């Protein structure tokens, strides 16, 4: 019996992948041994990130780790992948939304329609600004060319931010060549890990979303061909990957804010930042009006956030 071989591409570059995906794939390969091996490719290596979905659907690659937004998935849930403005506060919100509030079912429905298997969703870090010049008020956002997620960019455009999307690997150089003034793509852990902290000077502690939401996907036929135990193993390794990120980011965010030396922290006062949070509520309405599926997801976000507020501390303060 010959070894099953999968090609998997992540949207993360090698430096980040070392933490967020390499360990899980290594674990999978060690356990599966001669039965199955996954070859992992990094951001834009085989195909550009914007083409990831199509490449998986066509079988150029077999599996993908990405958020729905970055890989431009042709589904109704695309805008919610990555950072949907203020949908979550903590990284644990994401798995709860998927496992207990019904997002898993919606995602499964949507991806089945387009011939792709949605395997498992997990969360990453919160979304903060890392910039060359300090941001101390909303006015400082005006005219800043910022690398960010497509949907987050649409949202931020109303504050004068000019969203720019470039290949992930090119971001560090793009900041240096002046194509970008900053990055709104991650928390501080990632800024340090991938080298963005070396090319920017300031970190804004206000975030536009509490946690990234992204998933593992596979070509439907390739997935169905796998024996059940390998499917299970794959799921277990996905969960392992989610778990690793939970503590790696959570701990990293705090320790780098306290001990990091490369970036100066700035803050926009809560009262002023409230403008942004209020704008998000309006933005949710706009998105909900776009389709029935989107309305369903937005409704779930509303319900979840109101539940959390009612639950009080430690779920929500104030």
């Amino acid at each position: 019996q010959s070894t099953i071989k999968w090609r998997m591409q992540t949207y993360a570059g090698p430096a980040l992948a070392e933490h967020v995906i390499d360990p899980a794939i290594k674990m999978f390969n060690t356990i599966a041994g001669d039965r199955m091996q996954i070859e992992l490719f990094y951001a834009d290596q085989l195909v550009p990130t914007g083409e990831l979905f199509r490449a998986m659907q066509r079988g150029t690659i077999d599996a993908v780790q990405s958020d729905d937004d970055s890989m431009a998935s042709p589904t109704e849930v695309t805008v919610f992948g990555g950072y949907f403005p203020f949908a979550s506060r903590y990284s644990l919100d994401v798995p709860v939304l998927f496992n207990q509030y019904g997002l898993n079912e919606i995602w499964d429905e949507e991806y089945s329609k387009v011939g792709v298997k949605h395997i498992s969703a997990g969360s990453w870090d919160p979304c903060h600004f890392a910039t060359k010049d300090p941001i101390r008020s909303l006015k400082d956002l005006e005219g800043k060319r910022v690398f960010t997620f497509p949907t987050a960019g649409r949202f931020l455009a109303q504050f004068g931010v000019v969203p720019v999307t470039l290949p992930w690997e090119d971001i560090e150089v793009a900041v240096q060549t002046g194509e970008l003034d900053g990055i709104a793509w991650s928390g501080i852990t990632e800024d340090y890990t991938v080298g963005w902290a070396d090319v920017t000077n300031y970190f804004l502690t206000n975030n536009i979303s509490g946690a990234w939401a992204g998933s593992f996907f596979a070509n439907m036929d390739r997935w169905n061909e796998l024996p059940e135990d390998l499917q299970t193993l794959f799921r277990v390794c996905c969960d392992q990957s989610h778990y690793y990120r939970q503590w790696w980011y959570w701990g990293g965010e705090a320790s780098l804010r306290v001990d990091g030396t490369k970036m100066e922290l700035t803050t926009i006062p809560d009262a002023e930042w409230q403008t942004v949070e209020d704008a998000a509520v309006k933005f949710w309405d706009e998105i909900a009006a776009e389709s029935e599926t989107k309305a369903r997801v937005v409704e779930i976000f509303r319900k979840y956030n109101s539940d959390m507020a009612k639950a009080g501390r430690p779920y929500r303060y104030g």
Partner: protein
Amino acid sequence: MSYEMIAILMFSTMMLMLFTGQRVFGAIGFVGVISAVLLWGPGGSDIGFSAAMKLMKWYPLLTLPMFIFMGYVLSESKIADDLYKMFHVWMGPVRGGLAIGTILLMVLISAMNGLSVAGMAIGATIALPELLKRGYDKQMVTGVIQAGSSLGILVPPSVVLVLYAMIARQPVGQLWLAGVFPGLMMAAMFIAYVVIRCRIQPELGPVLPPEDRDIPRAEKLRLLRAGVLPLVIFAVMMVPFINGWTSLVESSAVGALAAFLAAVLKGRMTREVFENSVRNTLGISCMFMWIILAALGFGAVFDGLGAVRAIESLFTDQLGLSPWMILILMQLSFIVMGTFLDDTAMLVIVAPLYVPLVDALGFDLIWYGVLYTITTQIAYMTPPFGYNLFLMRAMAPAEIGLRDIYRSIVPFVMVMIVALTIVMAFPQIALWLPEYVYGK
């Protein structure tokens, strides 16, 4: 078949295809897509097109047509004529002086341009006929122009260093600064070579006859003003970039516009010059872009086979070589490959293999960028494959034969290898300036 075998097969098939003389992009592209289809079935057939999307998103490539256009405007409109005259008059009295003046001219042109095309065009069309008329040795001066114009990719701005920066994820500003002193050093070494050669064999570079030298002092001083133009163009392009007012690709557009306006203001932008610049820019840009398109497709498959990992483990685990030995081997293999592989293809296929390895070995990637560029310069002018060779043949007067061109580069390649060795041994030549400016 193991992946390593497939990778070797791909590489050798590509070489074979190249030797048939089919257009380079066709040869590389064919091997890339057929391998993808054979390996990965119908899904693999998308890799070729996927590369087109990748190319589209690779924003620094926008600088390519801009710098090419700039180069053509500078050479076609002959606004560099005055510059040449300046060096001609001032350096003429020295033995081999016109050749030295030509090298200095090339340094100035390099500072205005990111490729070697402009220097080559100006050198071959303006300087070369003059030098031949004055009885300079044709092989020496052909070599001078090729070697001098290759400085275009080492002295900032440099397109090759931009592409390297993208692959190695290193700051372009620092890379450009790192190229300054090695570039000047190499120019000085070329000059030293000419001086020594002409001392031993004065007939290679005769002194200008007195009637040519007898120019009023006021006129000589007036000619110095020609040197202002390149400085202005360089400043218009680089000052806003260094200050962060314009981005890299915007700066290249500013530079192209500045060259264009300079030609218009000097009354040199005739209908013919305009036509030639615009048409040749399309031709050369297409040549580069189609090769990059093909090479990106090839590279994706090559990468997909794990060729990088295979080479890495071969060097470090199996052969057990020390980092320096590996580095030297890599440079040697680069020079060898550069002699028969197209330079753009080399950048897109080989650099992604080597750069991670250099990083893993613990070397400075800024410094390596300079080594890499010097090696590319050598590749640019070593037969059978080199853009400078092609350009030279296309642009030089009829009396310069292919053999002259091939022979002419030998001493200069030697000088460049010495320069490469010096920069390898003394990294501070490259690193001092960026460290000083950026206070690393």
